[in-house]
């Protein structure tokens, strides 16, 4: 069937029909292949190199002499990186959709700063003792900061520009608070908090980060819902309401989903900056669609974090950098480019 909207196909299952953007599907498939390659490379490379064949043996559960290095040491770390990347890419796409602004992302509008401030505060003064407590505290802090920004930006409706500006303001305030905690806290604990702050997958394992997989799985229906709503919230408010959208409800739902995902990711690995900012913009340039692609943004985020962590481990080996340092090295110039471009009157 020929469609008036180019680049789309219709998938029909009985009475149900779904619009599919063909290029997005192709990009998602390519990203999956790339992600698999990045994961295998990450499992191969390290202090001791392991052959890809041996890595595949471990992944498929076949006996292998490298079971300890690959299965016990590297796999948990890579998996957590992958999950964090998925969650951050997705969160970035959702928040940028609501804010209609490529500058908005959970790490710009205060979510990761909120998580950091609360975790560092409680860690530095010895209230958080075990790694198991960190995610819960981070999620609570991120949610509180995100919702605070949302409420402050709310005045008879959500204004996108106000949302970003208030978010940046709150982020700065929370960063100062974090610095204060770091200097005032007890020596050793403050040091520990500092390491967490740079966003590291070093020593990350399933037991304290496995919850992220469940959160991602549970968010699938909500993401499908958001993907549909996305088709109309990228219009101006009047047009969106004219199309029958309950705009405020949809904005709140989308933002909330983004805030929860970003908080959970921060809880698992500390603030890994700039991933949520970059991933959706890279993805949309690949798909060339009319809205930020949710699935492709998540996959891009995962590729970015897995590759960044590989770089972080191998760049100055045997010294391991925190993954957040690598993403910041790439992300900060990108943010500057965005700012310069928007000052020149770009969108």
């Amino acid at each position, binding site marked *: 069937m020929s469609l*008036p909207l180019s680049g789309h196909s219709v998938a029909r299952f009985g009475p149900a029909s779904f619009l599919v953007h063909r290029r997005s599907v192709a990009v998602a498939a390519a990203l999956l292949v790339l992600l698999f390659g990045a994961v295998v490379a990450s499992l191969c490379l390290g202090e001791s190199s392991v052959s890809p064949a041996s890595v595949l043996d471990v992944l498929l559960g076949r006996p292998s002499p490298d079971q300890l290095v690959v299965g016990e040491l590297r796999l948990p770390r890579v998996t957590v990186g992958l999950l964090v990347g998925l969650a951050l890419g997705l969160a970035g796409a959702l928040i940028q959709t609501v804010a209609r602004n490529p500058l908005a992302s959970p790490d710009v509008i205060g979510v990761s700063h909120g998580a950091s401030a609360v975790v560092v505060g409680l860690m530095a003064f010895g209230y958080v003792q075990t790694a198991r407590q960190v995610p819960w505290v981070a999620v609570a802090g991120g949610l509180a900061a995100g919702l605070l920004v949302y409420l402050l930006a709310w005045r008879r409706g959500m204004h996108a520009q106000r949302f970003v500006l208030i978010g940046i303001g709150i982020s700065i305030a929370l960063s100062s608070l974090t610095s204060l905690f770091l200097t005032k806290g007890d020596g050793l604990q403050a040091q520990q908090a500092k390491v967490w702050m740079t966003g590291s997958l070093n020593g990350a394992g399933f037991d304290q980060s496995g919850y992220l997989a469940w959160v991602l799985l549970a968010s699938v229906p909500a993401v499908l819902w958001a993907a*549909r709503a996305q088709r109309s919230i990228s219009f101006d408010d009047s047009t969106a309401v*004219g*199309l029958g*959208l309950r705009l405020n409800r949809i904005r709140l739902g989308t933002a909330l989903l983004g805030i929860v995902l970003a908080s959970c990711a921060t809880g698992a690995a500390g603030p890994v900056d700039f991933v949520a900012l970059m991933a959706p913009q890279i993805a949309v340039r690949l798909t060339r669609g*009319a809205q930020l692609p949710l699935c492709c943004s998540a996959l891009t985020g995962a590729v970015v974090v897995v590759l960044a962590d590989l770089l972080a481990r191998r760049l100055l080996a045997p010294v391991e950098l925190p993954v957040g340092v690598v993403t910041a090295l790439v992300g900060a110039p990108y943010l500057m480019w965005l700012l310069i471009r928007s000052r020149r009157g770009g969108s």
Partner: protein
Amino acid sequence: MHRLEARGLTLAYESRTVVEELDLTVPDGAVTVIVGPNACGKSTLLRALGRLLRPVRGEVLLDGAELAGTPTRKIAQRIGLLPQSPVAPEGISVGDLVARGRQPHQSWWQQWSAADEQAVTEAMARTSTTELAGRSVDELSGGQRQRAWIAMALAQDTDILLLDEPTTFLDIAHQVEVLDLVRRLNRERGRTVVAVLHDLNQAARYADHLVAMRDGRIVAQGPPAEVVTAELVREVFGLDAVIVPDPVTGTPLVIPGAPWAG
């Protein structure tokens, strides 16, 4: 019974009252044009008719039911609206834009039906945007873009169409093209159209029912030939003018006086 009605409508932004105690019955199957000086409340009234603005007092009735109590999606199946300066998603193609007008008729698991296909194809044919389908909306000329937006409102397939200054930013040829299109839609498909227009002469030419507003009140309404008089123009716009018949259509044509011409 008329399908769209306003009763005792008071509209305000924050605490500034713009429209007060206004009653309006929109005639079915006709083109109604609202005119008036800047800030007279005409766009505000149109926004309220399209449930974009909640009345402070009074009500808007659609098929006898209060708009405020009707699910917004149900309203979207009966009222289509084109705001003054709509914003399209970045990089969207014309075909995709028009297709999104089908949103109120679709659901999560029914994203594209034969009816959607037909409505979109027809809307694009009517507005001569078919050959633009693959083009990006960003790169269209003003006239083409406005036709694409009208096509989207048409694809929504509603009996009532609200247009807020659909000719602003267009040159005269494109203004006429858009208004001719609106008129044809009304004549050929029986759509009820309510439009806000800036140009009194265009309003007189295209309206079946003309509504003249000033300071948030309706000063006069009826067929243009009866409503547009020298007294009304003076009262509503504060302008001295001569009214002559339009040489082409015979509708009233407002010629402003020229005090400087001695």
